[in-house]
């Protein structure tokens, strides 16, 4: 039905284009990482970045800011962006729906409900304290969606997953709104978590989830070839020897691990997972192994660019990365959708 390939009018061979885009996105990410360490409300010279990381001077405040504030948020952005980019690509592959977002499995809603619970019932107010709640909520919601989507004779078909995901999200969102409308104190804390931000996270949070990200990436890497077959349609994939339910289960596992980690780290950041595969696809073609690999590089670049813009645009205050990312990502997506010819696949 709705799988779409964006076919660019470039004349380079697909192979050249893939390697070029892979290399170009790596260079972009490297530049963005350096900028993320160097730029911010406090003006710091580029020359301080290297010594701050590898030969810190005692009592140098610039280097202290880089090491204690900017390095953690850069690493959080790197991990979260990577997880969201890859999860988005896998999600669009498994549901064969170009509108699929990692949040579609109910991940963001589940994490949000658990965090609301943590705030309103347990009075936890520190972002690192939410990690396990966010992770558990995300995993629980995704499992429910996947389980319900799998009931019935034909298993977890894309349409059922999409509908089940949206239904669970809507139900949970209703419960969250009900709490927030009657509980002003919880709303006051939750509203800041809910927009998604890389600020005030520490390396302890990274240490807690990095294992899950690695596991999720492994699943995603395995799922790439299977998704290529599933993209042909369930019947053809079966005919070629692919057990469709295995492909879907591996992909769903990847999405849960990756999105759970990203949401636990940075809050429910939307849009990265949706837009990154759309940015990548015109350059890589429809092969999911390439889409996933390049999304893994473009995802963190986009999220960190959003974070850097958010730091500079209203300096010395800042805008959360989760807000900025849609405002700079959406025009890119619209321009791409307009520029390339949309071909059904």
């Amino acid at each position, binding site marked *: *039905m*709705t799988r*779409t390939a964006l076919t660019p009018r470039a004349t380079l061979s697909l192979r050249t284009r893939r390697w070029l885009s892979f290399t170009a996105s790596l260079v972009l990410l490297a530049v963005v990482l350096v900028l993320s360490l160097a730029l911010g409300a406090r003006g710091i010279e580029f020359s301080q970045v290297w010594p701050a990381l590898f030969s810190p001077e005692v009592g140098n405040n610039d280097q202290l800011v880089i090491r204690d504030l900017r390095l953690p948020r850069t690493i959080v952005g790197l991990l979260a962006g990577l997880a969201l980019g890859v999860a988005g690509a896998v999600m669009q592959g498994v549901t064969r*729906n*170009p*509108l*699929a977002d990692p949040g579609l499995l109910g991940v963001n809603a589940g994490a949000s409900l658990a965090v609301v619970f943590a705030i309103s019932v347990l009075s936890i107010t520190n972002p690192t304290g939410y990690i396990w709640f966010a992770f558990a909520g995300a995993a629980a919601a995704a499992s429910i969606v996947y389980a*319900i*989507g799998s*009931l*019935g*004779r*034909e298993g977890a078909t894309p*349409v*059922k997953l*999409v*509908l*089940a995901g*949206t*239904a*669970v999200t*809507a*139900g*949970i*969102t*209703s*419960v969250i*709104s*009900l709490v*927030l*409308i*009657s509980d*002003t104190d919880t*709303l006051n804390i939750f*509203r*800041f978590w*809910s*927009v998604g931000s890389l600020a005030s996270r520490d390396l302890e949070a990274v240490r807690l989830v990095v294992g899950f990200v690695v596991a999720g990436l492994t699943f995603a890497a395995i799922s790439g070839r299977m998704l290529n077959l599933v993209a042909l349609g369930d019947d053809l994939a079966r005919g070629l020897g692919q057990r469709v339910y295995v492909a879907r289960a591996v992909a769903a596992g990847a999405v849960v691990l990756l999105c759970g980690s990203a949401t636990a780290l940075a809050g429910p950041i*939307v*849009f990265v997972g*949706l*837009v990154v595969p*759309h940015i990548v696809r015109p350059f890589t073609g429809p092969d999911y192994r390439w889409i996933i690999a390049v999304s893994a590089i473009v995802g963190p670049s986009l999220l960190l660019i959003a974070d850097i813009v958010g730091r500079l645009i209203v300096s010395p205050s800042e*805008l*959360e990365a*989760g*807000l*900025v*990312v*849609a*405002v700079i*990502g*959406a*025009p890119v*997506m*619209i321009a791409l*959708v*307009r520029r390339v010819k*949309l071909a*059904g696949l």
Partner: protein
Amino acid sequence: MSRTPRVILSLSVVAVALALISIAVGAYTLSLPDLMATLFGGGTPSDRFIVLKLRLPRVLLAVLVSIGFGLAGALFQSLLRNALASPDIIGISGGASVAAVLSLLVFGATGLVVPLSALLGALVVAFTIYLLSWRSGMNGMRFVLIGVGIAFMAQAVLGYLITRGDVRDAQQALVWMVGGLGGSSWGDILIMAVSLAVLLPAVVVLAAKLRMLQLGDDLAAGLGVSVQRSRLALIVVAVALVAIATALVGPLAFVAFVSAPIARRLVGGGGLALVPSALVAIVLVLGSDFVAQHLIATGAQVPTGIVTGIVGAPYLLWLISTTNREGRAS
């Protein structure tokens, strides 16, 4: 054999029953004979006040806006051939919310200004999506993707407004964003009724064209349908339906999205199921409003839009898990 007539009949019976219960039951409950007498011009003055001034407007408005939401969702999902392409997901409700919340929080607006801003916001967003997706013809997939991009931008603006303002203002904005039937008046009913009187005949005419468009653009063109013009007309009608309904009651979460998939599963087959979709929306909204008013015990008034998700989601999930037919996702 289609199950459509049977489904329509049962849904209508449920809708009428829910409407009567909503009017009769409350802090002061009327008996069925009293209710009937009051509705048909008799009854005591106090009964007349409670029924005609307080409860009937709310039920009537619920029915009328539900028709708008249900049809708009069904039209969008069929036209754009994507189960996710309901007005809440392609940015149209988002545009309405941004404009309304902006008028509430930034300009301190009250009264008629808020629904007018919402209407304007929805129309501006729809027009923008249409313009941006036009490239020697409108492509459904391009429309959807651009709509989703705009929806996320709207969400970011809402997130900004909600996190920057005072928490009490944020709460007020949140109440508007989930939508409710609290302030229903005969004026609102008149607006929605007139809009439907204009738009429903258009839906009837366009439904025939939509059925052919579902066969694919080329085949439809071969059958004599002017593809671009029909598609534009369908979008205009669907946007008008959802924009006016949203302006009056806020974006009742989930109603536009869920009504058509539920209706298609009930009816079976691959039809458009427009009438069943509207009826499902009516039942969902009346049921949710009853739950919101009577079954949830909190001090504050609970907006109807909060409950639509809690009531509608389990039902859709149950349908997904029990029907083997996929309905048509288109």
